[in-house]
């Protein structure tokens, strides 16, 4: 056993190494998806593929690396040598969806791997039927792009030219994909150097013991946090509107959380069978949603490693939308991950009402517009919009903030316009969209695009159109999402269509859910929302029982008191979980 100071120094060093890897990819990557959206992760694993440290990046990747690495270890067994680099992306062999390509590099001691540098990046395009490889309306994985089983990217230091040429010929933007693969290799190189230093300092036995101690410390921390929560069990059901193939058929997600002593479990039994559309999760993505919810409730400082996984079980029945099997399509499974997070948060909110927010905006909306310009040069605009947090038991939900499950940044409007044949007409908050409550849900954000090229393919993966972000404990739900061709027609939440020159497409994200009785909302907060134009005078009366007028709007206290008294008398007992607007029932 090492002394506690050495152990803590090692923990600092190994976590710093994971972050240095992440920084390397951030700086060296080609694609905006990696840099702006941080849709990548880095990690250090031990020889068994157990997660020792993960770099700062995407919560949705928490569990993915050990699953994928352990699949590679099963495939190659003893056939792993110095200078090897492994890669894979197959969702049905440990991966998540095809754009997520893993790169693993072993570090050797005494002729055997002692640790692994691991990276996963969402690549701009891996081929398949649509630019960006993320259509939500594919019905088999075979339409989604290049499927890479566990393979050697480098074999004893020699690049696998066969594989590289196969990738090069099967993706739409090979320079970008190859550039991002180089960034992954650079991050592995940084990790290999750092691990070599640690190996020189501590020796092989010392390094193994310190990796074990790092995981054991996290396990103790997780057990301590879990033991402080009351025991209990709760089941929550949430919905995805549909899968775009079977339009209008809702898809059910069911999460049962059990907490007992120093242990917590998430059980997804009862969720819908896998669907035809490309939104089927793999196990690791549903597990990541479960862990994200658990970590947000336990402690923000919980490390990301195997020690925490030991205290939290995740059961996901195979063949369901939460854990698809071949040949399920899964490219757009991001949606199901977001909904799984909403569902896991919902179950935790039932168990621990004072610790958990109402539903956020439902996860991001994926928008891709791509095609060829007049000179037949390809362009692909891939964007993910998100907006707002659900109201918290102690404060309003955040406006204009990324979702908890994916710390994504937005692109610059000016850069989008400079690089694509698109004009953006507006981008901002929409009044009266945050779920009313004692604490208000975050506001919807909307954006409008005009097509400037002769045509392009527009794909939208939105949701929360028929099943709104739920409110909690008397709070109302947020507003539904909206897609429209302005001046022409309203559109479905998920779509693939041709956009012609001059056509104007608008997307409004859902508003987030409210928390607590809106008639109890402080007049100061309502006054601020009125002044900011986030709640209209009509909305204030309808949702909050507040009477106001003028510009800037001033609250009439006497009239407000009278209206609130009248509405309180009429108000039916609110459900714990509200899916429909509160005034519908009045």
């Amino acid at each position, binding site marked *: 056993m090492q002394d506690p100071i050495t152990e803590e120094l090692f923990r600092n060093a190994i976590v710093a190494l994971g972050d240095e890897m992440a920084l390397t990819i951030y700086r*060296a990557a080609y694609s905006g998806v990696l840099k702006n959206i941080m849709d990548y992760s880095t990690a250090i694993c031990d020889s068994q593929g157990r997660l020792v440290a993960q770099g700062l990046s995407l919560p949705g990747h928490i569990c993915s690396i050990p699953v994928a690495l352990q699949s590679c270890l099963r495939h190659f067994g003893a056939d792993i040598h110095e200078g090897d680099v492994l890669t894979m992306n197959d969702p049905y062999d440990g991966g998540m969806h095809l754009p997520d390509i893993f790169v693993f590099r072993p570090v050797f001691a005494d002729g055997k791997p002692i640790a692994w540098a691991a990276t996963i990046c969402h690549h701009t395009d891996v081929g398949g039927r649509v630019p960006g490889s993320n259509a939500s309306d594919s019905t088999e994985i075979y339409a989604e792009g290049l499927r890479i089983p566990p393979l050697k990217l480098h074999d004893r230091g020699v690049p696998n030219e066969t594989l590289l040429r196969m990738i090069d010929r099967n993706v739409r933007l090979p320079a970008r994909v190859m550039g991002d693969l180089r960034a992954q290799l650079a991050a592995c190189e940084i990790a290999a150097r750092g691990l070599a230093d640690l190996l020189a300092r501590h020796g092989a036995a010392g390094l193994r013991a310190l990796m074990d101690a790092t995981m054991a410390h996290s396990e103790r921390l997780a057990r301590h946090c879990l033991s402080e929560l009351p025991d209990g069990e709760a089941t929550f059901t949430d919905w995805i509107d549909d899968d775009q193939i079977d339009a209008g058929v809702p898809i059910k997600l069911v999460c049962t959380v059990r907490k007992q002593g120093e242990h917590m479990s998430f059980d997804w039994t009862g969720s819908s069978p896998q669907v035809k559309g490309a939104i089927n999760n793999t196990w690791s993505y549903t597990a990541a949603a479960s862990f994200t919810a658990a970590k947000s409730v336990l402690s923000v400082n919980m490390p990301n490693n195997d020690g925490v996984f030991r205290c939290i079980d995740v059961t996901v029945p195979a063949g369901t939308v939460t854990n698809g099997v071949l040949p399920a399509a899964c490219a757009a499974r991001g949606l199901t991950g977001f909904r799984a997070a909403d569902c896991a948060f919902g179950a935790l909110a039932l168990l621990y009402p004072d610790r958990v927010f109402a539903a956020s905006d439902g996860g991001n909306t994926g928008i891709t517009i791509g095609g060829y310009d007049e000179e037949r040069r390809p362009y692909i605009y891939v964007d993910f919009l998100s907006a707002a947090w659900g109201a918290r038991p102690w404060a309003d939900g955040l406006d204009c903030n990324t979702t908890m499950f994916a710390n994504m940044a937005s692109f610059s409007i000016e850069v989008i316009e400079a690089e694509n044949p698109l004009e953006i007409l507006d981008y901002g908050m929409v009044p009266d969209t945050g779920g009313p409550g004692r604490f208000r849900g975050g506001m919807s954000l909307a954006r409008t695009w005009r097509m400037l090229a002769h045509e392009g393919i527009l794909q939208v993966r939105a949701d929360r159109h028929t099943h709104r972000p739920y409110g909690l404990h008397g709070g109302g739900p947020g507003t539904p999402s909206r897609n429209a061709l302005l001046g022409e027609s309203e559109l479905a939440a998920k779509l693939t269509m041709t956009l012609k020159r001059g056509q104007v497409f608008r997307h409004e994200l859902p508003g987030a859910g409210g928390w607590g009785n809106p008639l109890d909302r402080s007049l100061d907060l309502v006054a601020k929302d009125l002044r900011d134009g986030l709640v209209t005078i009509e909305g204030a009366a309808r949702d909050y029982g507040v009477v106001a007028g003028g510009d800037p709007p001033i609250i009439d206290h006497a009239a407000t008191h009278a209206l609130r008294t009248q509405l309180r008398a009429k108000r039916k007992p609110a459900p714990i979980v509200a899916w429909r607007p509160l005034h519908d029932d009045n």
Partner: protein
Amino acid sequence: MSLRIGIDIGGTFTDLVAIAPDGTVRTHKTASTPHDYSQGIATGLAALLTGEAVAEVLHATTVGSNTILEGKGARTALITTAGFRDVLEIRDLRMPRLYDMHWTKPPALVERRLRLEVSEKTRPDGSIAVPLDPASIAACIERIRAEGVQSVAICLLHSYANPAHERAVADALRAALPDVALSVSHEILPEIKEYPRTSTTVVNAYVQPVVRAYLTALSARLRALGITAPLHLMQSNGGLAAAGHAAAFPAHIVESGPAAGVVGAAALAARLQEDRLITFDMGGTTAKAGLVEDGHVLRTEAMEVGAGVMAGARLLVGAGYMLKLPAIDLAEVGAGGGSICRLDAAGAPKVGPHSAGADPGPVCYGRGGTEPTITDCNLVLGYLDPAGLAGGAVKLDREAALHAVTDHIAAPLGLPLEQAAHGMLRLAAATMMRAIRAVSVERGRDVRGFSLLAFGGNGPLFAAGIAAELGIRRVIVPPMPGLFSAFGLLLADTEHHATRSLRMRTADPAALQTALDALLQEGADRLAEDGFPPDRRSATRTARARYVGQSSELSVPLPDGDAPAILAALPEAFAAEHARTYGFRAPPGEPVELMGLSVIARGIPEHPRLPARIPPATATVPPCRRAWFEATGWTDTPVLARAGLATTPRQGPLIVQEYDATCLVPPGASAALDAFGNVRIELQ
């Protein structure tokens, strides 16, 4: 004999350093006066001066950053393109902390009601898609007047490509509202990306009336003391700017304090012929590291004000207010003398990020602190004088520190007291090493080839230990390490930084030449305003470039020559920098895209600014005390004043005790005084 005076305002103290032409240095430390910082300066100057003439006053101030941190800026409005008033609040959506349901965004500096829109739209190529509607400007003016707005930021989409609409809006406002301060985005940051440009312009507008009032008050106090010498402000980029320029563009002086120390380090590095230097500035709550290579300081293109210290890595942003302006690149971590040592819920030892600050301060200050801090550990191990800090002005209670470290750390960990205290110092050092790695290893530099320049009240105490861990062989502790930022001001040059977006996917020599000439002319004009004749001006030209398809840029020195020569040499210059920073370059023939240009116009001073020698400080110090080292245990350790060192190296262990800092030379290291007056520590 006229003096040059450097004044650095910190949260607790205002430091003043005056230097005479013969190199004689005078220093004074006085309490800062946050209600009106100029008052503390006046008090300090009155104590420092005895009727001498003053040649110039150089100043670093936190007034800009404090205005933002405390939310005490002007009532500010923002005018944007119709449809985009929420850009300021949307930011880039990202949050700095994961899994934190308690996260609260910093509130926008302009409330939504004062985010106004004009009907217009410029295209990315500068052509006009929607003409500017005068009626919408009139409506903005009406609202600004009705709401009593003091300062206005104007930021329209694509104004970097064509500023005509921004100019027209500014002209209309100037005519209608002559008393309202204006900040116009294309004048402050003519670069693509609307959020950084809007945020930078808004920060400028928000602090401008406050900074202007402060500088007016300070000038009046200087005149009252009979000082009519020019006043120059340190900018975040490390260059000096005349007070008038700083008042118009205060966004440039927001992080002026930390910059001064690095500028001083760069000047010293040139004198000492140290090509590769890492600066290490450790105070009571944080430690900062910077990089000086070949006399140049490492700069960054953007920073966040009020974001606190870097959260592990600088990947997670959004905690503060974005300023996309060149600034000296400093990595900051939450480890200082006041950092608290604790065990976490699973029994693992942690140092920081909580700090006991100045109040209550460490346990040994006897002001009510109960949890042991880094300063307590230093006292326990005998590194600090139990008689007190600052010549005994701050008394230290060693017994209290012993108990705190024993009860909170040593006993629960089952370690001997000394090992526990030493372990805490090693953990603090590990945190500080992350800052040093951030500016070196993470940028492709091998830290072992660098020297470490240590300053700040706590820097000299930790420097040798950190250097040993990192494989650094030489530590330099400059004179007046605790007032080094104020000293650094005296060594800075007048600088004007200007940048332009270019976005040249295809080589267009004419466009490049036009942009470059405009930037050079702008710098020359500003230096002329400052009174620098043509023979005392220099310009440094930098390009920002990337491989086509990459989304981040690297800065590379612009190859010499005219535009065609630059374009011919750029791909190789870029590839070399890419290899140095990331460890790889793309295959030959991969196209390189020029994204922007920067020019630093520098005024060359008439006389050298650095004296030949700073006479070493003398002080009465106890001859010896017991100190604990890992290698030797409790050891009788000589204590010296700086003047007690000689040019011949003396073997550690040693403690060099000064009024403003204590320098530790551990066993195995040696220390000597160099010709300039620095303590040089050599490690084996």
